[in-house]
């Protein structure tokens, strides 16, 4: 039996100029915040921007961006809604706010289904909020979307730093292009990655981000967005 879905992924992404896969290999490091606000910043700069939340078991981009009433439409596939200036697709459209208890291979299957049927149209950027860790879904994603550029998120915490080092080595062996490394939740000290050729910058811990959750305009006025904006300027 042949699963035909992966054969059509490149067609679905034919109108997308760049794919940025925001990834982090430890929980709680702000991967989804960076993916969501990155998409918001790119859109506000005038880039046609799409955001795909593939963190199925912990989907939160719609909460960060306050996307409550947007809904996809059907034509020759699923057309994601344009909301907050972003073309947005998430498993939250299908899970109705319930928990999504998927094992690793099921996450891959669901991601493949969305990649096969979502019609992205013309986009300058597709930001993908990647599944956490280096399990089935992450490995499948970089296999299916070979031109995805990794934006690796870490924090200054030793465990996050060490995990990032190991994961970067793995993805280098898999020939996945690295767009850069971003340190989130910085306390202001120099990053352990500050001398890495692909270190793009640090974002300080910003308590205002929590208050602004769900309010895109308020998010854009936070120090978090300002500092991420400087990083975005290095590659957009």
């Amino acid at each position, binding site marked *: *039996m*042949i*699963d*035909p*879905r992966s*054969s*059509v992924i490149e*067609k*679905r992404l034919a109108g997308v100029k760049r794919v940025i896969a925001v990834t982090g290999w430890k929980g709680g490091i702000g991967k989804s915040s960076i993916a969501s606000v990155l998409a918001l910043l790119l859109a506000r700069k005038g880039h046609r921007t799409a955001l795909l939340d593939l963190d199925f078991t912990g989907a939160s981009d719609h909460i960060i961006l306050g996307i409550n009433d947007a809904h996809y439409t*059907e*034509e*020759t*596939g*699923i057309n994601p809604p344009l909301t907050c200036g972003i073309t947005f697709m998430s*498993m939250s459209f*299908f*899970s*109705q706010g*319930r*928990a*999504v*208890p*998927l*094992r690793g291979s*099921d*996450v891959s*299957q*669901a991601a493949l*289904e*969305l990649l*096969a*049927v*979502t*019609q992205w149209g013309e986009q300058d950027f597709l930001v993908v909020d990647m599944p956490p860790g280096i399990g089935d879904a992450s490995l499948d994603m970089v296999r299916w979307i070979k031109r995805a550029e990794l934006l690796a998120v870490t924090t200054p915490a030793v465990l996050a730093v060490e995990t990032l080092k190991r994961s970067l080595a793995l993805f280098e062996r898999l020939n996945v292009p690295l767009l850069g490394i971003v340190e989130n939740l910085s306390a202001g000290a120099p990053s352990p990655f500050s001398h890495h050729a692909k270190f793009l910058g640090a974002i300080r811990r910003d308590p205002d981000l929590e208050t602004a959750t769900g309010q895109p305009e308020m998010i854009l006025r936070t120090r978090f967005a300002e500092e991420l904006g400087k990083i975005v300027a290095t590659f957009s």
Partner: protein
Amino acid sequence: MHEWALAEAVVTSATETARQQKLAVVEEIVLNIGELQAIDNEMFAELVQGQLSSAAVELRGAKVRVVKGEAAFECQACKKEFSEKDTKVGEEEREAIHFVPEMAHVYMRCPACGSPDFSIVRGRGVFIQEISGRHD
């Protein structure tokens, strides 16, 4: 309808497979459509047939036949095997599963122990079961 996108995947994949198998003429494509995806088999076969009419020349005359794949599940907690008929799923939930079959884990439960932790043994999606043709 999102079935169009799946039909396009079938035609793209069938084209690749026919070329790998060096088939000069594809005579029949057999599709296995999983019950869980809740696709109208006849309508889907017509969609694929329609797209084949403008596909690569070796596929244009191919007939499309659909085999229904019954869904089967196995509970990871109590090992009970069950079918879709054994579960209670509403219309709205069924639509979500229609788009992404893995949403079954959100809305379905093991009829014996109530666990959402089950595996979809078969019947989840659209597959090409067989491609047959001539090499001349």
